[in-house]
């Protein structure tokens, strides 16, 4: 765990030095929200669970749980996932 964190921070430093986008270097999702209406997750790893009130998205580490009402997945592709509806909570589990 310690070693892994060390690698991560050095990578992060390198990315900062070379001015590379950190989400590419670190393989992390980029999450964009439009108010409480839309949520766009880029670089996701798939869908774990989907109901009208809960969407769980698998990430490279952990998962993202979105709760709300009338949730619809507007767009589902390999690189991006768009959740529409009325969002109330976003929980990040590592």
């Amino acid at each position: 765990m310690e070693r892994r964190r060390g690698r991560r921070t050095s990578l992060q430093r390198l990315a900062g030095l070379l001015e590379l986008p950190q989400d590419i270097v670190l393989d992390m999702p980029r999450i964009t929200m439009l108010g409480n209406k839309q949520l766009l997750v880029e670089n996701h790893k798939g869908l774990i669970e989907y109901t009208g009130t809960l969407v769980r998205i698998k990430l490279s580490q952990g998962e993202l749980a979105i709760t709300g009402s009338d949730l619809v997945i507007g767009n589902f592709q390999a690189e991006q996932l768009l959740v529409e509806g009325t969002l109330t909570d976003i929980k990040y589990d590592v």
Partner: protein
Amino acid sequence: MLTLRFTNYLHGTVRARISGPMPEKFINLCLARGIFLWGIAKHNDDMFVSLRLGDFFRIRPLARRSRTRVEAVGHAGFPFALKRIRRRKMLVAGAVLFFMLLNLLASRVWFVDVSGNKEMAGERIAAVAADQGLKPGITKDGLDLKKVEKEMLLALPELAWVGVSLTGTRAVIEVVEKTLPKAEDRSPAHVVADKDGVIIEVIAIAGQAAVKKGDTVKRGDLLIKGFVDAPPAAPGQVPIITLPGQLVRAGGIVKARVWYDSYGEAGLAEEVYRRTGRQTVAVTLRAGGRELQVKKAPAQPYARFEAETVHKKLPGGRNSDFTVESTINIFHELIAETREITAEQARDLARGRALAAVQDRIPEGVQVVAREVAVLKTAEPSIVRVKVTVETIEDIGRTVNINQQ
């Protein structure tokens, strides 16, 4: 976004119901295969997704692996529209027929108009154009406008220029006619006096002057003779033959002083007429060749009246000879009033009347040398009489053909 929607329409889209214990697994399998899904929604236990028609045939093995059941519930897009159209062949045939007919009718000349002709008949120009192939019903493709213009110009020597232009299905032939000089009258003629006067200048351009400066002439007197004598034989030479004189068309400028007399009078008590405001209106309606009296008026509505006529015309359509016209006659009643004026005013009035009367007889543009106004002495004190004499210098020559028996 628009291009995405367009490609979706082109490929056709299917709305599918996915039922089973783990629809999420199916979705992830689709993701792994690169199958694009959108509009994922859950109603009760069933999940609904949209996908492309091509992808819909690839998901059968995925459904089996994820133990879900896939069922198409709706479809949209071009392939389905095409399928519908295939069942309605006559509709397509009608549309194709419509466009073919439209193209066929638009590719022909249906009207030939001629414009710019003044003396020549338009029918004649159109007939020549028809000989060159430019007539209603001809296809525009086979028409060589430049050649038609050239041939028309050759066929009609009275034309200076011909331009043919096509606007839609209408061919417009614009022509410019040659303006030929008028045939000059070359028959022998004399110049005679048109008015009485005293000659002040004679310039004979052709013929022999019959009068000289200072002569007094009467209307109709000969001024320039249209006859030239034979040239005299040189002195000391015996004339071999005597040449007869020659008749020519005389021409020249003969300037003379001309006097115009005029007379005007004005009473000290002038009678003037004024409109009373009362009026009678008669209306006649004319449509085509028929006349209709809408409102009649007596022939003599008032003791003294002034008539005013107003014509009103309905703007007819083009090519229409049918005109609708109304004639409105307004009769204004007049009242006579006597107005007292001073001797001075009466003289001016009389002078003005006399001048106005003489002005009609003096041709326009002549040089006025003198203008005399004389008040005539009369026994009647209530009337002023004025005599006006205007002296002008003008060309009094008038060409008169010599009668040849």
